[in-house]
């Protein structure tokens, strides 16, 4: 499903983060982040562990609150107004490292819960949409199973389908393949590539550099809570500017 006609001008970025700072208590996690994401853009965020990648994307759908600066998603300013937060969460899907599926609900129920209760969709329609997206991630036959009965790769694909059922305009991925056995990484990445080819706006925290090369419009390198460098994948991998970036790349691309 390609994303529907945007409500605002196509040229307007779908996410605008400006001058954003975040602290955990006294610990300054995110420092002066400025980032704008165009519609249908695919961004890969890389960086060493603890650099604030997760925190950054979690601020976008208000799983974490920021203390300074502004975040605007699809024309909605993210404040601590619950209405705005709910409005933004409806439009922003998120896939977690640990899947975070609901183990007491079947795969189908995992997918239909939010459309029924948040989008107020009739159950029948929600189920049709869920089956559509479960087919897209290639596991329609697992619809009546419980997450605990599926493999990790299958669970992560269910998680992707579950987010897609809300018809989000933006998808956030926080290391979606880090908890998977090597055999299963590919099936999840393939699903994400399909999604990218259909024009979804995606922000992906990952260390899968092959994926970054193939899909990303832009790669962002973060360290110590700051965006150190950003570039298209070609230049990012072959011609990094910053010493810190070079060091990082030499470490993860050793082989």
């Amino acid at each position, binding site marked *: 499903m390609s994303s529907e006609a945007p409500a605002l001008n196509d040229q307007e970025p779908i996410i605008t983060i400006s001058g954003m700072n975040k602290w955990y208590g006294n610990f300054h996690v995110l420092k002066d982040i400025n980032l704008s994401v165009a519609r249908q853009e695919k961004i890969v965020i890389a960086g060493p562990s603890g650099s604030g990648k997760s925190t950054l994307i979690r601020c976008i759908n208000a799983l974490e609150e920021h203390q300074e600066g502004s975040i605007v998603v699809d024309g909605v300013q993210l404040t601590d107004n619950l209405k705005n937060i709910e409005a933004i969460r409806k439009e922003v899907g998120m896939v977690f490292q640990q899947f975070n599926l609901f*183990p007491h609900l079947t795969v189908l129920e995992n997918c239909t819960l939010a459309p029924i209760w948040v989008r107020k969709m009739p159950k029948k329609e929600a189920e049709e949409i869920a089956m559509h997206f479960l087919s897209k991630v290639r596991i329609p036959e697992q619809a009546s199973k419980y997450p*605990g009965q599926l493999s990790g790769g299958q669970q992560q694909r269910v998680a992707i389908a579950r987010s897609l059922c809300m018809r989000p305009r933006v998808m956030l991925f926080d290391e979606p393949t880090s908890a998977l056995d090597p055999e299963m990484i590919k099936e999840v990445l393939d699903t994400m590539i399909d999604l990218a080819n259909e024009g979804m706006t995606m922000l992906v925290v990952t260390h899968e550099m092959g994926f970054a090369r193939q899909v990303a419009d832009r790669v962002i390198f973060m360290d110590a809570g700051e965006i150190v460098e950003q570039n298209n994948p070609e230049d990012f991998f072959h011609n990094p500017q910053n010493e810190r970036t070079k060091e990082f790349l030499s470490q993860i691309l050793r082989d």
Partner: protein
Amino acid sequence: MADQDKTGANFVPTPPRDAPVNTVGMGAMIKKNLFAGPVSWVATPVLLFIIVSVLWHVFSWGLLRATNHGASNRTCHLAERTSLLSQHEITILMADKLLLSKSYQSQDQRQFWVDSQSTWGRFALGTLGFGPSYGELLTAEIMGNREVSRALSQRAEILATINKDIEFIERNPDPDATLHPGLANVVAGKDLLAGREALKAAVTAQDPVAFEAARSEFDDMVHWGEAHNGACWTVVKRRWQQFMYGFYPKEQVWRVATTALLLLLGGLSLLWPGRSSASRSLSAAVVGGLIGYTVSSGVGLASGGLLLALALSVGLALLYEQLDVGKRGLIFFLGFPLVAIWLLIRFSLPQAITLPSTWGQWVFGLIMMAIWALFFWQSWQRQTQSHSFKPITNLVYLAVGVLTFYVFLTVRVDVDGQQLSSFQELLGRLRLSDVEVDNVWGGLLATAVTGLTGIAVSLPLGVILALGRRSDLPIVSTFSTGFIEFVRGVPLITILFMASVLLPLFLPEGVTINKLFRALVGVSLFASAYMAEVIRGGLQGLSKGQTEGADSLGLSYWQTQRFIILPQALKISIPGIVNTFIGLYKDTTLLSIIGIFDLLGVGSRSVLPSLEWARLEAEVYAFIALFFFVSCFFMSRYSQHLERRLATGHEH
């Protein structure tokens, strides 16, 4: 076999082998679990022996030798006494045997054996049971023996007590007006005093034949006594009503029974889903029928009214069972408490509902028909949608509809010479008196009301307190924490006293709340605090990812709690929740301390102190203990069943 190397060749998995024979099967299981080492070689037989002998004694006392006839403890007393007669027979027999034995000669030896008869000698000889008849044994020597003469005189005393018991039983006839046949034989057959005289005479005359004849007169009585000298369940049977309802007016007891049946109807359909629809309909129809019958016989409806009540109750029960589980739950949890209060305390219909005119009857009848039609239409829709035609359901619907229509509009009954429609009769009969709660409700009624209210209130309140304690809002979390810690830190009995003494002080002048209600509040609040902590444990067992997953989908706080967090947290907490339920249920016995006659209170403060049932502590407490055990065991089993049913693959 040489070292295997599968490189190069195609990999072929080795076929699995069976486990070694001596590690599987019954024999291995017994060896491994019961006779693993020297300790278990000793412990297993010893424990088995203890278990078997305890069980045997309980079984023999509580079932084999139990009595439940008669009108008071006298019957059981009689059984005990008469069975003692045979014990003395053994004493006599044994002394006889010893004295006649050729194995010892001297007076000293003889004395030794006689003295030791109360220990192992008694055991050995008594149980072996060999012995010549009285006739042979009654020699002058025996009659001179002081053991024997003591036994004889004790026997005479026992006979005197028996006589008194029998006289008492004759003076206070059985409420059933007929004595149990065995007991009747005992009471009617023997002139005890004459029998006693005959025995005495035979002894004095040293006439073995006469003694044997006099003694065998009592055989039937002794046999009856031996067969009935166990538990005296007469007390439970005769005071059953009190154990169940306390002092609820006898002629109104059907109201309690109806409430219990309604509870059963709701309980069966909510707690035991997943049965075939035929079985569900059947149980609903049966319980519905029982409800109709209980109400009718309670208010004295007959013919048309009975038919109407039966049709209505079976029909409504079936319609209720047709609803989906959410609606059934809603109706039950909102409707049942109201209906129960109405039934148990205040049953009088408001004046406004009285519609004695014919058109009122038509209006009411048509409303009933409309409701019926709505249900039928819904069911029909479901059937056509799922393409599964249910002939029995449809038949039942039609039958209920026609019957309702027929009974409402046509049947006339004769009430005190007046021709009334059955509808008018029903309304007229349902005008009942109010029942006081304090000092009237008691027994199982009080226990169950407290227990069930406590359970029904403490679960939701516990959930709210648990969520409150984890809330981000400081006021909410401080309040919840404070409440939980305070209530948990105070003994229940203090809370009950506070509820019964302090609560009235806060009420405006002239307003009174009944004692039971105050206790209910106390028990419910107390259980809620425990419940909150159990549920909080469950909440903490969930990973943060669950909330984040729900948040990221845009679910609101309450939606997240309702659909994601609570179902899982409650499921994890089932053992703890049921544990709290069981504790709460048993704690209801404390009500007797603040003057409410709950099940235990009826036993200890009403039944046992009465002269009729004195000295039956064992039976009364065993009955109460058994009752609590059975209900708690049921709860525990049900919770395990629930855990299994809710298991969804392996969870992480």
